[in-house]
């Protein structure tokens, strides 16, 4: 029985450690101590935008096409092709974009942070920082979190635009069951500004979790290159699980009680 309990206990231990580490890093950002290294934060934000933006936007463009195509054919089968905009609006904004964003950040940014910090850890670079009187958690982790908060809202909002455009192309230009005006009328009726804010919150919570998990596993990596590889794999698994938990909770909290669907008057 005890052996069965060890796995979930280990997960809970890790969750607690990550939460504590994340709280410490967020405390450094909120207290403004990270601003001592604001230049490093801007550098990291630049790396995030240059290294990840096009990939994320490319991915959400493809997914926007898929949402449009699926919605158009599904609603054609129900005899309501004019309502393809409904499917696109919800699919794009509420669910697929946050998940796509989360997956891509987990795969590219999260693992990148683990690998970079882990390599620094095993080659004594983090100890060197500490000996030079530079607080490593602030310099390496808090700056990355601030960089994420600077860069990701911009990347996310542009991603929404890219996805909307892709769905429009698929429904109106490719399949063509509905006119441009008809599509946009329904598309905008089924979303409003709070939906945009809620979606952004979902995406940013995922991004924060992913950066924190990456920093934790990278900063605490040990056991040489193999240990860094193991930490990278663990962070990926943990992040994917967390992306789904945040996605589910976000949907429940923001749209669970009130889906804000203008149907039936």
């Amino acid at each position, binding site marked *: 029985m005890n052996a069965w309990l060890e796995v979930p206990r280990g997960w809970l231990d890790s969750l607690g450690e990550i939460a*504590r*580490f994340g709280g*410490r890093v967020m405390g450094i950002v909120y207290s403004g101590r990270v601003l001592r290294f604001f230049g490093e934060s801007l550098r990291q934000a630049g790396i995030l935008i240059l290294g990840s933006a096009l990939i994320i936007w490319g991915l959400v463009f493809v997914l926007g096409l898929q949402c449009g195509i699926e919605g158009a054919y599904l609603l054609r089968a129900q005899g309501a092709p004019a309502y393809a905009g409904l499917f696109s609006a919800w699919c794009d904004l509420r669910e697929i974009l946050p998940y796509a964003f989360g997956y891509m950040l987990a795969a590219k940014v999260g693992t990148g942070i683990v690998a*970079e910090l882990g*390599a*620094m*850890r095993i*080659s*004594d*670079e983090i*100890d*060197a920082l*500490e*000996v*030079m*009187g*530079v*607080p490593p*958690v602030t310099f390496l982790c808090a700056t990355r979190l601030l960089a994420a908060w600077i860069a990701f809202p911009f990347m996310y909002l542009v991603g929404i635009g890219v996805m909307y455009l892709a769905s429009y192309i698929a429904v109106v230009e490719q399949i063509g069951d509905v006119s441009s005006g008809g599509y946009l009328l329904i598309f905008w009726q089924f979303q409003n500004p709070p939906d945009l804010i809620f979606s952004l919150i979902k995406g940013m919570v995922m991004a924060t979790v992913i950066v924190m998990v990456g920093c934790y596993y990278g900063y*605490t990596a*040990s*056991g*040489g290159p193999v*240990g860094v590889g193991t930490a990278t794999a663990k962070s990926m698994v943990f992040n994917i699980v967390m992306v789904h938990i945040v996605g589910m909770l976000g949907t429940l909290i923001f749209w669970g009680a009130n889906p804000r669907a203008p149907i039936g008057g």
Partner: protein
Amino acid sequence: MPIEDDQRREEEELQDEAAVSGEETPEIAVAPARASGNGDPYVAEDGAVMGRDFVIPGVDPAEHDPYKFHTGRKRDHGGTDAIEIVDLVKQFGRARILNGLNLGLPEDQVSMVLGPSGTGKSVLIKHIVGLLYPDSGDVLVHGESIPNMTDDELFEVRKKFGLLFQDGALFGSMNIYDNVAFPLRQHTDKGEEEIGEIVNRRLKEVGLSEATYKMPNELSGGMRKRAGFARALVLEPAIVMFDEPDSGLDPVRTALLCELIREVHAENGGCYLVISHDLGTARRIADFIAVLWSGKIVESGPKEEVFDSSNPFVSQFLHADVSGPLSMD
């Protein structure tokens, strides 16, 4: 709390390193029961009993008196101590690496801690710079207790230190110039022009003028060490430490690096501490030598006196004799 986190991580890492390098905790033989008391090598100050509560790598708990060669004698070096280690104890799991170590490192001299592999020399350096915290005992740097400092005090006092890690520990994402300039940019208000002058002077001193804009992965091991040396010196620290500066270098480059350390020390002064087990390095650069074994200092003092010591262990180690108390076990 953050310090505890880092300390625990450091400890796990060191245990991992020990496991990877095969320096595993030796087979435990429980020592015969003996009465506790002062001076009993089997019973530590905290009442822990060797064999039952801890083991010391390289020491058989069944041995009658594992510290029979440890006179702890400290010969006069004629100056004041910049660093004092007092009854330092550090244990990882059951392996007690440092077992009541006492040592004073003199100001304005090049000191060297020598000892067989796996005896805790690097652990000692990590205590001095506050990367590890002792289980008991104290580390005093210019009279200030390192383990009792807050995080902010510790980061402040670390500006006194320069540390050359075994492989240089250069930042892989920066070129050599930026690596050396990093401490100046973080801790001083100097402009880029002044920083450039200092960095170029330091790089010239270590013979890396031609490699200024190369990345660390483009350099040989010796060049990385020299670049790390330049970075360690750039803030003109009062205390400079070298963790096995000769490891992985051929004899000529080792000699050149030793020469460089002597030259820089002659120019800047300060307390220099070199950790090594290389006797050639000890003969070339040390003013003061301490021999570490089984978690304690066997003897320490000025180089000539320690090299001439009649202590069987010190004599065997410093003359690389095959016969004596130190064996392959």
